């Protein structure tokens, strides 16, 4: 078949009712944008809890805290925890969050003793250097994701409320959630807090050698600290991440359902538009069939028209979602767990496939009907 001829017909047919075409494309774009946003948040959530070290990391918080910032543990307890059999390292962490409820665009500081940091966590510097960080009391290492979001570079100052840090390095981490953090010196965060909490930290990150003993060691830690100033609640990091993000998961489940409903609604919209467009042209199609166009060829033309609309809408919707994600750089924070939107090439391909499928499904029935209708009857209607 002559492609140029088909392509021209397709273009002219879509331009026939510009308003209708534009509205259909916009409808598809809106649905696909929603689909991509919801799915990339879901992917981001999966990524956030996927850290490879989370199985052999325990997190110790004050019992009954309702937010990381209301957890106060005596820093000196780190020494006692470190003595427990099976514990490899203990990292006291002071957490500062811009907002401890579920919110978009959370800023999270972790204050840690600089001398312990590099043994306890994997910090792969991609810019800046370790020495500068160690030298300056107000120096900070910024996770790559956060640096990108805020456009931070080595040498920049970053200020949030009363906390001001100098960016000494930017790092990657095998733990995706840590790439959203600002890691700085423990004293800096302690000094910015209340005076009577000076010797306290928010949590202990405990590395253990055998993940299978996680539960036992957690129980041992809680027993050990039961008599101290603040009773503790120790959990495996994986379990902590799961429970912290449980509500978000629930919302996302609903969101996904909602996204699917939207795609279905749009499918109905496109189907209706295509059906209308085909009905209008049934006589014209009969004329083309009389000229010798095969039914299959006309069917392909109609399917191609519908798919072109759907794909254009899908591309615009995906682009809109991408622009939203990259320009607003939203990060959803729940209880200090930061979840970014992860728009992967695979998700883009899925969105394209969804749009294409919608286009095909929408056009299949009207196109089939139009090309199977008896020509004389169709000519009469023209």
């Amino acid at each position, binding site marked *: 078949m002559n492609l140029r001829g088909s392509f021209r017909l397709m273009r002219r047919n879509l331009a026939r009712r510009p308003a209708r075409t534009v509205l259909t494309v916009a409808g598809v774009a809106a649905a696909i944008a929603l689909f991509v946003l919801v799915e990339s948040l879901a992917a981001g959530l999966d990524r956030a809890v996927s850290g490879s070290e989370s199985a052999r990391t325990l997190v110790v918080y004050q019992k009954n805290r309702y937010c990381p910032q209301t957890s106060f543990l005596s820093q000196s307890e780190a020494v006692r925890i470190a003595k427990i059999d099976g514990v490899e390292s203990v990292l006291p962490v002071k957490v500062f969050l811009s907002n401890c409820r579920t919110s978009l665009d959370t800023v999270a500081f972790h204050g840690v003793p600089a001398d312990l940091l590099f043994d306890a966590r994997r910090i792969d510097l991609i810019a800046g250097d370790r020495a500068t960080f160690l030298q300056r009391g107000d120096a900070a290492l910024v996770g790559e994701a956060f640096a990108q979001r805020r456009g931070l570079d080595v040498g920049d100052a970053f200020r949030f409320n009363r906390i001001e840090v100098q960016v000494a390095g930017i790092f990657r981490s095998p733990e995706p959630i840590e790439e959203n953090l600002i890691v700085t010196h423990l004293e800096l965060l302690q000094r910015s807090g209340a005076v009577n909490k000076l010797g306290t930290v928010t949590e202990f990150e405990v590395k253990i050698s055998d993940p299978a003993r996680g539960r036992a060691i957690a129980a041992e830690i809680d027993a050990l600290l039961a008599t101290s100033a603040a009773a503790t609640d120790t959990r495996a990091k994986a379990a902590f991440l799961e429970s912290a993000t449980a509500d978000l998961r629930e919302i996302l489940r609903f969101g996904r359902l909602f996204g699917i409903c939207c795609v279905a609604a749009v499918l109905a919209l496109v189907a209706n538009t295509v059906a209308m467009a085909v009905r209008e042209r049934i006589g014209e199609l009969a004329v*083309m069939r009389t000229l010798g166009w095969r039914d299959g060829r006309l069917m392909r033309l109609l399917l191609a028209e519908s798919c072109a609309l759907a794909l254009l809408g899908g591309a615009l919707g995906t682009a809109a979602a991408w622009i939203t994600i990259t320009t607003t750089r939203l990060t959803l924070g729940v209880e200090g767990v930061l979840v970014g939107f992860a728009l992967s090439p695979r998700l883009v391909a899925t969105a394209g496939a969804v749009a294409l499928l919608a286009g095909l499904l929408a056009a299949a029935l009207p196109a089939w009907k139009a090309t199977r209708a008896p020509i004389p009857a169709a000519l009469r209607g023209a």
Partner: protein
Amino acid sequence: MAFVELSGVTKSFHKGATTITPLDDVSLTIEQGEFFVLLGPSGSGKTTLLHLLAGIDPPDRGQVVVGGKDIATLRAGPLADWRAEHVGYVFQQHHLVPVLTAWENVELPLFLFPLSTAERTKRVGFALRAVGLDDRADHYPRQLSGGQEQRVAIARAIVADPPLLLADEPTGNLDHDSAQSVLDLLARLHHERGKTIVMVTHDPNAAARGTRMVHLDKGRLHEEARR
């Protein structure tokens, strides 16, 4: 040589309890190169007969043989290919595609053949010149008069150079002058290019251009004149 042969063709339509039989056991032979005129009152089945000849409507009974081929036995796909190659159809209403220009409308059937762009351009230009509308190539159907639209439709019917032209009241909606130019064109196609033409008309003046006149009434054909 017989080009079109209908034998024992019956076609009926059912509307509720009533059955209309516009073609009742009709047999007819049309020779190659004939300018065949089909006359008959409105609703007598003239368009139905053309549909059968074009293979866009199958007979209920009987054979339709065109150019030695029994087209009623062809499947939809091959029948479409056969139509593209053998039949030029001028509709009772011109039926141009509104979103395409005159040129593009005429080019439409050529996309079904493996032709180069240059060859297509040559043929479309030729067909449009034949109907005297090469200066209107870029006009859309809505920018043309009724007579011009009908002439574009004729150009579309002849552009692929089919041996059989079926014209359903090609002058029905035209004024005298436009009608004359369309008839002149058909006569020329018949004389100069040896086309076999089957034309339906109510107009005695148009009918006079043909080499043979046949009347269709109550399902039967009656030979009127032969030149």
